[in-house]
């Protein structure tokens, strides 16, 4: 065994050394160094998953409620820092300039809402899943089932973007076709989730956070140093790069610095990169506001995010875990725009060609002549980011499938062993659906994920907001609110999928865009909930007593 390990280590070291000296290629060939790093990281995840694997349903759903607030904060951050954050954020700013910052603000600002309006109260309510809360609070098995279905839909929509990111990174590392890369990546993440369950996932998430953030920051320090900006804090240092893009970098100021294709670090004046709602980006002021708002309320309505508050011992821990989680998240979100700025300069020459925006983080490191092994670590970090989120989403989706649909709605007497089996079957079914949906590349990763946020903002967010803060919200009101939220979502998504053959296409696709329809859907759902609740029978006394005595006392 020792010989085998020594042989593997020897071969690995040789390959890593070869890879380190190999010339950088943007696409195409199999990259041995990055592949070894990726495999090593995935093996670590699986071993940790096996070591901390779920032993019963309480472990599977809520990690035994034994995770500390800092640990939970890291898990929140890892769960949150998906392919959309790691790869998609820089892609959005690279493609749309200042408009991309609406996603940065939306995906961080929502945590303020989540914390001050919900986190502690959700933990005090003491349920396992979002659908559990909805079913109990609104005393309705049908709403629990509907909540579960919505949670599954949100998880699927969210996962599609992640699988796209996994596919892009597997494609880049293995030099294979995108479709095959999605299938292989999907199979690996499914195996990992099935083995570990949520206890393993939570432990893994803490390890994943460390890997994700280190792999993201190391190339950034190197790039900032190469560009001769303030490299000690690249999150501030890249500000000069933004200003340089706006004013342009003349050839004389590039100090003989070249990208990996031999082009100067020079760029023509490009104010459209940083100026607000620039016409060149094709995005307006309204769209900026609508996206930021939709993402923020969507954050407070995502089942897999809400579910993280069930794994801490106390409501106070739930609150503080948000602070830690947001801080850990912000470390990445402060850094992502730097990649887009450097990527903009390094790909300014038309010869670089049209790069896949969602892989711009990796291309930027490549074009910046960062060591191929470090670029490989970066790509593996991207895969880790997608893995950590997908595993959390698959657990949230399978929890909704097994716990809320199967057990609570159909077979309340089923054994824990059977519940676990159903949860795992649910995970497999979801993974297959997501893989199929991820094969055509519909949009940028960040935009695909934004659909899940708008869906959550229109449906789950109003139910939690009113459910916690207004005891007058009753079952009928909740049903009305969900119907309105789903109608708005259906109209937006139908127009987005069918296209301009539908009447008033331009009007609807602008005001109800697929990435931001919650800006109007959520307020309408809340209004419908309030009006119908006021007109119908009050919430039962025991629910109101529970809210006062258990949630708000």
């Amino acid at each position, binding site marked *: 065994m020792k010989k085998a390990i020594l042989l593997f280590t020897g071969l690995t070291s040789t390959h890593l050394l070869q890879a380190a000296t190999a010339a950088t290629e943007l696409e195409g060939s199999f990259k041995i160094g990055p592949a070894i790093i990726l495999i090593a990281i995935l093996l670590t995840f699986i071993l940790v998953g096996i070591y901390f694997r779920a032993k019963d349903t309480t472990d599977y759903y809520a990690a035994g409620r034994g995770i500390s607030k800092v640990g939970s904060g890291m898990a929140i951050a890892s769960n949150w820092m998906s392919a959309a954050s790691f790869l998609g954020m820089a892609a959005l700013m690279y493609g749309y300039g200042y408009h991309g910052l609406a996603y940065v603000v939306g995906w961080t*600002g929502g945590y303020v809402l989540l914390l001050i309006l919900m986190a502690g109260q959700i933990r005090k309510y003491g349920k396992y899943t979002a659908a559990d809360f909805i079913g109990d609070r609104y005393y309705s098995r049908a709403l629990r089932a509907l909540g579960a279905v919505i949670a599954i839909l949100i998880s699927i929509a969210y996962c599609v973007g992640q699988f796209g990111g996994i596919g892009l990174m597997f494609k880049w590392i293995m030099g294979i076709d995108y479709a095959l890369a999605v299938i292989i990546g999907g199979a690996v993440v499914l195996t990992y989730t099935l083995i570990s369950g949520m206890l393993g996932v939570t432990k893994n998430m803490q390890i994943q956070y460390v890997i994700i953030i280190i792999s993201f920051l190391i190339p950034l320090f190197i790039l900032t140093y190469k560009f001769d900006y303030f490299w000690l804090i690249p999150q501030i240092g890249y500000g000069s790069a933004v200003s340089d893009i706006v004013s342009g970098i003349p050839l004389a100021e590039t100090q003989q610095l070249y990208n990996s294709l031999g082009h100067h670090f020079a760029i023509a004046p490009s104010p459209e990169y940083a100026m607000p709602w620039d016409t060149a980006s094709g995005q307006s002021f309204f769209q900026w506001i609508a996206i930021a708002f939709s993402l923020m309320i969507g954050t407070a309505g995502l089942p897999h995010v809400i579910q993280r508050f069930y794994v801490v011992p106390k409501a106070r821990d739930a609150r503080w875990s948000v602070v830690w989680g947001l801080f850990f998240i912000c470390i990445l979100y402060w850094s992502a725009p730097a990649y887009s700025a450097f990527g903009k300069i390094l790909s300014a020459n038309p010869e670089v060609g049209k790069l896949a925006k969602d892989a711009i983080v990796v291309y930027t490191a490549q074009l910046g002549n960062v060591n191929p092994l470090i670029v490989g670590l970066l790509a593996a970090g991207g895969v880790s980011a997608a893995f950590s989120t997908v595993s959390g989403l698959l657990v949230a989706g399978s929890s909704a499938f097994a716990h809320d649909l199967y057990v609570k709605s159909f077979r309340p007497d089923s054994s824990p062993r059977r519940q676990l089996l159903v949860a795992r079957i649910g995970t497999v079914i979801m993974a297959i659906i997501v893989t199929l949906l991820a094969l055509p590349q519909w949009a940028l990763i960040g935009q695909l994920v934004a659909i899940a946020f708008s869906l959550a903002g229109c449906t789950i967010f109003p139910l939690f907001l009113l459910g916690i803060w207004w005891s007058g919200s009753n079952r009928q009101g909740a049903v009305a609110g969900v119907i309105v939220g789903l109608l708005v979502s259906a109209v937006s998504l139908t127009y987005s999928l069918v296209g301009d053959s539908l009447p008033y296409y331009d009007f609807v696709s602008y005001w109800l865009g697929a990435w931001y329809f919650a800006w109007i859907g959520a307020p309408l759902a809340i209004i419908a909930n309030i009006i119908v609740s006021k007109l119908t029978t009050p919430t039962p006394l025991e629910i109101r007593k529970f809210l006062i005595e258990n949630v708000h006392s």
Partner: protein
Amino acid sequence: MEENRNDYHISFFKPTTPRALANRNMVIWLVSIWVVAIFGFQIALRLLEKPTPEAAYKSFESSWPSVKSNTANQEELKDFAGATLSVLGKVFIDAGDKAVLDNAFNRAVYQILDEGQKEALIPEIKNFEALKAEIKVVTEPDYVKAKKELMTKAAPLLGIPENNVLRDILPLELNTAEMNTVRPETMKQLPGIMEKYLVHNQSVLTNFKFLGFPFHYFYTAVLLLILFVFLCWLYCISADRLNKKFDISD
């Protein structure tokens, strides 16, 4: 007995206990700061902004009437070609817009060259086009050499100075197929395209520099995130204090 809606009633806006009242006030304060910080600043940006043209747009505006009426002199044509090349040098251009710009730029180049220059330069551009179609990687020595030679010959003819980054782009945008004629849609669409890429929303908030950033960019990309973490920290501290004050345990 009929249940009264007001028994055990919870409403965020009508708190019934001192703890709930204190919590409501705290939440209202924090949400107000949050709203003003995010949306208030973007609205301020919107209110203060003015459409500000790049230098290339001013060159385009001054040369366009003559180019359009086919009466442009050499200097006007050079200004016009430089302005269109500035847009072609941007990283992202819509494919349809690029086709229009290619046509306008190459037609202007053709008009700038005298007969002798055409005889010397056009075969060289054609050779480079053929080489470009053949190469597998852009670092092939023959290709790099041909590109540099073409750049050295063409840039002075168009008045592009040594230090200008557009020199690097120039050989890649020269296209003999676009030189012979200007399409009607080019004449129609070009002013709108130039405005789209060369006029930007700028104000004191975008022009002022802070830590190297344009201020508005720093505010949105860095400062707002710091504020979010601070608001969360402040809420947790305040909630802990409130719980202690009212002797509430989690």
